[in-house]
């Protein structure tokens, strides 16, 4: 059965991509704002809930000795999820470009 977080929502996608380097909550939001050219600005409750959820599923983990603010980074499992999503999106992109569709016709 498909995991309940898949396909990744835009929020989850950006958070996993941002956490390829260790960051604390607020820094994740700032990085995502830059990565998305200002189109995705996460709110506090959404970010807290998403971090909780990703951590619970073992896709991100807290970095040890990170001081007052908890810092997270992606896990191997999380990276595998990103890889899977990348393949899914690449396939969709290829459909956009009409390569595979043309072969069928």
């Amino acid at each position, binding site marked *: 059965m498909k995991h309940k977080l898949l396909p990744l*929502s*835009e*929020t989850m996608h950006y958070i996993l991509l941002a956490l390829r380097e260790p960051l604390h*909550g*607020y820094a994740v*939001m700032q990085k995502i704002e830059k990565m998305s050219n200002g189109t*995705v*600005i*996460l*709110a*506090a*409750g*959404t*970010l*807290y*809930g*998403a*971090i909780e959820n990703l951590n619970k599923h073992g896709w991100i983990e807290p970095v040890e000795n990170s001081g*007052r*603010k*908890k810092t997270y980074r992606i896990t191997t499992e999380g990276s595998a999820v990103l890889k899977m999503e990348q393949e899914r999106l690449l396939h969709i992109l290829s459909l956009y470009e009409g390569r595979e569709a043309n072969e069928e016709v």
Partner: protein
Amino acid sequence: MKRFKVFFNIEKEEQWLEEQLQKGYRCTSISGLGIYTFEQTDKQYVIRLDYQDYLSKQKFAEYKGIYEDFGWTHIRGSRLSGIQRWQKEDNGQNEIFSDRQSRASYYKRLMNYSLWLGMICLAYSFMLYSDSPLYHEGLWSMEGSLFWKALLFETPFVLLKLLPALMAIVLGSSCYKAYQKYSMLKNL
């Protein structure tokens, strides 16, 4: 300015608080007994209510830390379970949820909370009403003005006794409203 208010519905409370803030106030404290304290301000503030289930000390600190980083001030809320009230200066980024999924899970938390609290009230009402009748039994055999005086005397106590049943109804309707919003967001 101090105001006394009791809410059984989190969205009504948020609405009412927002109305006060729009009149040029900011909330400085909320006491457990329902006393809301405001002070006048030139700046525009916004207030948002979140609901969280039990949080460990560590989780609660992390939860508060993230909100505070975003500029929110915690006005009131217990980590053991309950409504968390957040206020901040209006700067255009005034929401605590920025996507559909997180808004849906907020309504789901709210739905479960009203459901449980409502069930407890309902169970308590059954216990209360099966033990003894609402009015004293001797009341109905009284006559004339004595009957009316006794009825008048007992009625406030009866209303008080009916409170858990009324709360169960209010909570039941909040639960249904939260469910409607949850399923709407879920099926969009």
